[in-house]
């Protein structure tokens, strides 16, 4: 049983900061996703937890042990790598068995545990093959089986789905979620794909440039992004962000005028709203602009237009039809609007 704590953890190279002052408590059995664009420090954070990277500063605790100086093998974790790291000279069976072998688990348990793990990821038919003779998805499952065979304190997964094609990604995602439910182990999962983060996580940590941007449940992050970075990273399409000016509860900008907002905020701000929160208006709309492009998505139609220099996307009914250049009018409910400080990008909470 392991909770994992990171206290003021930093990773610095000669003059490059990889992770800056990272603080987080991960509860036992939690599914935590580290989310961010490439180079944001999420993989480095995970590698520090695994012991594959030295910690420059700070403390990492797994359970009640300070593990800073421990070798990876002594941390009792297992890890799934982005390119799987399967041993090409061993069969699937031997690959899965390897952790038991090197950890000197009694010989007689090996077979049962390997079979149990392989059953869980549906690999029974491939046990005698070598990794080279497997498809990407099968290799991925071998890596998973090798991670779960040992029943460690925690699972670490480094972008395990990024080398799979779109369809396989969805089914493997479901499998991982299910495994977590069955095995009930602390899991840390690194990804740059916000859909994976939203679907898998109990909690998401959004990172950028080595800093934590926001920690929260998927819904919190979606509904109340802490800053413009999170707002623009989460959701598909990302939140529309429009620079403009607030005065007496009215937001104004090029082609846009939204009223009924908080009267406590004045000055330059960034207004954010999600594509699905906008509704088509009749005679007058808060946004009035010519259509830039119309995209049919199937379940809905996405129209976009230029507002205050930004391309703004709006989701409308799937039978909506219009030509490029037509002027549309759109309303946004004040409650669906988010306000961000224009210089810092931080969320402005009226009343504080």
């Amino acid at each position, binding site marked *: 049983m392991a909770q994992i704590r990171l206290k003021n953890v930093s990773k610095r190279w000669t003059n490059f900061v990889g992770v800056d002052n990272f603080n987080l408590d991960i509860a036992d059995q939690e599914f935590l996703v580290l989310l961010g664009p490439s180079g944001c420090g999420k993989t480095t954070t995970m590698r520090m937890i695994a012991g594959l990277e030295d910690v420059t500063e700070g403390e990492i605790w797994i359970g009640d042990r300070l593990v800073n100086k421990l070798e990876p*093998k002594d941390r009792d974790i297992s890890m799934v790598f982005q390119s799987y790291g399967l041993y090409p000279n061993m069969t699937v069976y031997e690959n899965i068995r390897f952790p038991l072998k090197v950890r000197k688990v009694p010989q007689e348990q090996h077979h049962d545990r390997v079979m149990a793990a392989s059953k869980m990821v549906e690999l029974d038919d491939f046990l005698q093959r070598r990794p080279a003779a497997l498809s990407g998805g099968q290799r991925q499952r071998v890596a998973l089986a090798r991670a779960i065979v040992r029943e460690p304190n925690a699972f670490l997964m480094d972008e395990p789905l990024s080398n799979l094609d779109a369809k396989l990604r969805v089914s493997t995602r479901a499998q991982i979620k299910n495994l977590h439910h069955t095995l009930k182990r602390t899991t840390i999962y690194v990804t740059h794909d916000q859909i994976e983060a939203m679907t898998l996580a109990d909690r998401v940590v959004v990172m950028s440039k080595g800093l934590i941007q926001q920690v929260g449940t998927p819904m919190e992050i979606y509904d109340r992004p802490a800053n413009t970075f999170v707002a623009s990273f989460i959701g598909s399409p990302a939140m529309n962000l429009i620079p403009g000016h607030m005065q007496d509860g009215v937001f104004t900008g090029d082609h846009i005028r939204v009223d009924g907002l908080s009267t406590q905020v004045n000055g330059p701000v960034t207004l954010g709203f999600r594509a699905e929160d906008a509704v088509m208006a009749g005679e007058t709309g808060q946004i009035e602009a010519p259509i830039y492009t119309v995209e049919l998505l199937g379940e809905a139609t996405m129209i976009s237009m230029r507002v205050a220099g930004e391309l703004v996307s709006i989701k409308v009914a799937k039978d909506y039809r219009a030509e490029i250049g037509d002027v549309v009018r759109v309303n946004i409910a004040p409650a669906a609007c988010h306000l961000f400080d224009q210089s810092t990008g931080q969320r402005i909470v009226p009343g504080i």
Partner: protein
Amino acid sequence: MSDATLSQKRPLPLTILITVFIVIWVVLAAFPFIWTVWGSFKVEPDFFSRQSWWNAIFGTYTQAQNDGNSFTGDGYYGAWVTREFWRAAGNTAIVTVSVTIISLTLGTLGGYALARSGRGYAFWILILALVFRAMPHITLVSGYLLPFFQLNIWGVLPTSIIVLVAINQPFTLWMLHSFFLSIPKDLDESAMVDGCSRFEAFRRVIIPVMWPGVVTTGLFSFLLAYNDFATTSMLLSSDNQTMVPKISSFLGSVQEQGNVMFAVAAVVSATVPLFILVLFFQRQIVSGLTAGAVKG
């Protein structure tokens, strides 16, 4: 590059030009060897004939001296038996095999560390190795001689072996370093997470997959030890000489005695292993030569 589509459109004169050029080059590259192998079975007046090199082809004098037979193994007999070339061949075998094995052992460990470290000092060790690689061997030899005389370890095989290993290290390190870079880091890292120490990960996971690179590097270590003249000729006493310095010391003595054919036979004998090597390991040699270039 798709040669099929390109070659279809090639005009005839160009094709002829290419063919002629390649034929000239292949003759240039191969003829000296064929000629010398052929000539080594003749007597000296044939192979070194002032009158006409047809003598060498038909073996005019060889027939005269050899009861009408136009081939003779006298050169080989003289070199291997009379002049005890077999001793040198044995020494060469000992030296090359030991050098290859020791170089590879040290080189795989070091090359692996260099490939996985990624720190500043690993980079500087590689640069230092590059500088060492450029040192003419003979300049180092002039540094060895005096200390080796003092320590009384001059002239014996082990000294030469260890020196050749050291001279070989920079190259071996570079090559194995770039080879290990091509083995995904995930492999040893997953072994370490699975419960191995760094050395165990190296032994259990890296060693089983490193053989292609080790074989290629080993070929070049072998070649360096086999082809060396500067070091072995200065560091080995005449009793312990390997083939190449032995041939060089042949030259002086046999020429005076009219036994040049001994040297020719010895030269051909020393070439044979190289032929075999290229024949069997052509692909590894080519890939080894390019590995450093493409990656480094």
